[in-house]
């Protein structure tokens, strides 16, 4: 069983502020979901790790930049919430 403080810790890890009401409702909803997915434990005890889904393979491409420098700059900067002289503006970190 999870507790409110677990939800608070997860929310901090996920960088989301939750109201007290949201914390309670997420707690009440997540518990049955975790209870439901716990059925995975009953089956997977019998399996070895070699049974992973999908055949993973590397997909590579040449490390080249086909876009002309500055081509997307204006469009991207226009989407920034805060910018100055073509730089993304953020608050002081140190």
């Amino acid at each position, binding site marked *: 069983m999870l507790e409110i403080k677990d939800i608070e810790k*997860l929310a901090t890890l*996920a960088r989301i502020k939750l109201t007290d009401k949201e914390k309670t409702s*997420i707690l009440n909803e997540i518990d049955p*979901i975790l209870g439901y997915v716990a059925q*995975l434990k009953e089956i997977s005890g019998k399996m070895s790790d070699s*049974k992973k*889904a999908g055949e993973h393979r590397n997909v590579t491409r040449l490390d080249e930049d086909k876009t002309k420098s500055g081509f997307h700059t204006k469009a991207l900067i226009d*989407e920034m919430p*805060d910018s100055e002289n073509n730089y993304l503006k953020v608050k002081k970190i140190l």
Partner: protein
Amino acid sequence: MNIDLKNLTITKAHDSLMKGDYTAVDLVQAYLNEIKKKDNEIHAYLEVYADVLDQAKKADEIIKSGKAGLLTGIPISIKDNILIKGRKVSAGSKILENYTATYDATVIEKLKKEGVVFLGRTNMDEFAMGGSTENSAYGPTKNPIDTERVPGGSSGGAVASVASNEALAALGSDTGGSIRQPASFCGLVGLKTTYGMISRYGLMAMGSSLDQIGPIAKTVEDTEILFNVIKGNDSKDSTSLKIFPRKEKTDAKKIKMKIGVPYDFLKVDGIDKDVLSSFKESIEKLQKLGHEIVKIELPNLKYSLAVYYVIVPAEVSSNMARYDGMRFGKKVSGENGIEDYFLSREKGLGKEVKRRIILGTYVLSAGYYDAYYNKANLVRGLIRDDYKKAFEKVDVIITPTAPNVAFKIGEKVSDPLQMYLEDIFTVPINLAGVPAISVPSGFKTINGKKMPIGLQFVANHSCENVLFEISKNFLCE
């Protein structure tokens, strides 16, 4: 100009445009009129583009020049998570309320080359998380057949736009049934393609190992036309398949198919008895058409939802990390940099998104990773193997698309687990990466309203042609 939009298909519209019965401008105006008349109530669209008639004029020029393709001048709606350069796109979320796409998705590029007319962007569950379109930050879409009911989701707006004749066809996306289930709820055809068949460059990611873009239309033929235009390898999407012809598996032209029915899997709780009896009628119809019904076993499919609701939140919590109010999207300013993150995400993201991020953070955290995420991936492998074995014996597998017909708006909002259980028949397909199509197969009459029931055909990897062939045969197209 009176155009019979109800019975219009892409091929019929194309013929009329070529013959000059009407112009693309006339056609598009007819759809705009329907939108004006109905969309206040249905709410299929989040935005109808202001330049729709200009796009149609351009299409008319292409037609005049004799260079028109099948899709030139065809009015299509686009789900709000697919990017069109210079146009707003929000994924049904407040965090992207004023976001403008900076590039074209590959599917959009392909449709632009054909001279398609983009009518607008359609409503959806926020970031495609949901099965009813009630999770949109901009209010729910209503089912055009009964406006007290949901159209399904997450591509609910896309499907409602076609079902209400506010678009001729639509593009949606499907992570666990988000094209097929709403298609089933609104009596349309919806296709989830083989994982990697259609480029996802320019589709906002939700569950990256599951997401696929796909077409929604009134007929299998229209679905196939759209599929043929948007499919194909794309170097901009590393999960995109290089398509090799699979001759031994793609003998779609054969008249008699072996159709597998996983009878044990149909015994899940909560399946409506009318859906089951309609399914039995579909089996009989397929037998009458000369196909052979084979009982098959897919013993691990019963774990599909448990696998899905571990893998999806895990992938969601990673994919949603980019929405932090820094580089694009909504920013809510706090005391310092880190508080900007917390506040922007608090104000910008909705309840279901937050719930999945928290759940995903939990299943990926140290100490639980093995118990949940790793186990889920192992069982996912078993589900894939189930299909692999089944397709050694049969050409195609059938199940209902959804265990119930469209439910009432608000009916399941308070119980997310109940909402998740609605995905039981669609989710395993995404986990295995195989293609599936939902086609209308019957009705359940409730209070005088004929609510559609869908039948789902599933084929082996890269065997979309088998799906088109059998479903056309089934619908006598």
